[in-house]
């Protein structure tokens, strides 16, 4: 359903530290060269880009927006959350089952260094 998602950054080095860590847990690596000033995590089924906004204005967060990454198992969800907290993220919900998710799937929530809300879910369908 998704080709890619963008999130805005006001400090790409802070974002690099954070996203290199949590995307690495999920098996994705930044493929953009350091001088690109942006981060591109490319997988066989989707791309995730973190960059300063094109319009030159500061990046700001959306209220209501959450970007959910797929994790292969519950243990990876927990490692993802731990890695995020150690790399400049803040807790928005500890790893565990979520009653609103299909079949009480395990998920965990973080805010990135810019305040964007993200989560990782091992979906049990």
């Amino acid at each position, binding site marked *: 359903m*998704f080709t*890619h998602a963008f999130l805005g950054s006001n400090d790409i080095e802070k974002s690099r530290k954070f996203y290199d860590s949590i995307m690495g847990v999920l098996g994705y690596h930044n493929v953009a060269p350091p001088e690109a000033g942006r981060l591109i995590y490319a997988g066989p089924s989707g791309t995730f880009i973190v960059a300063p906004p094109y319009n030159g204005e*500061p990046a*700001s967060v959306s209220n209501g927006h959450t970007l959910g990454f797929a994790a292969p198992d519950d243990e990876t969800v927990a490692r993802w959350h731990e890695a995020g907290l150690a790399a400049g993220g803040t807790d928005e919900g500890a790893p565990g089952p979520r009653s609103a998710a299909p079949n009480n799937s395990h998920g965990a929530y973080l805010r990135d260094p810019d305040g964007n809300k993200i989560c990782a879910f091992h979906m049990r369908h």
Partner: protein
Amino acid sequence: MSMYSHVMIGTDDPEQARAFYDATFAALGIPGRHTPRGAFYGSPETGFFGVAIPRDEQAATHANGGTIGLKAGTPAQVDAWHQAALANGGTCEGPPGPREYGAPMYGAYVRDPVGNKLCAFALLAEDAAAS
């Protein structure tokens, strides 16, 4: 496995959001269902897109720097998606047309009624893009 499990977006007006997203996801051939606070689209195989009143009950806002890219099967679906968006409270952020993002693609950009930036892209076959 898709990179994304799901994407949520906020709305202050579920009825308006359902009208916009029912029409735009129908153009992409993606089914949905309504929920008390909004709607969901997609399936376990593809991932889900959800629109809902924010959990904190504060106003829904859009980001600067955030974009959600949706997959279309064909350029005609991209055209239909863009048209459906404009007819249902969306605004144009880039008309449908070919774009070169590492691979030949055909895409279009809109903002939903809250201002969230969305795009839909179809991957073009190399020979079709060259013609």
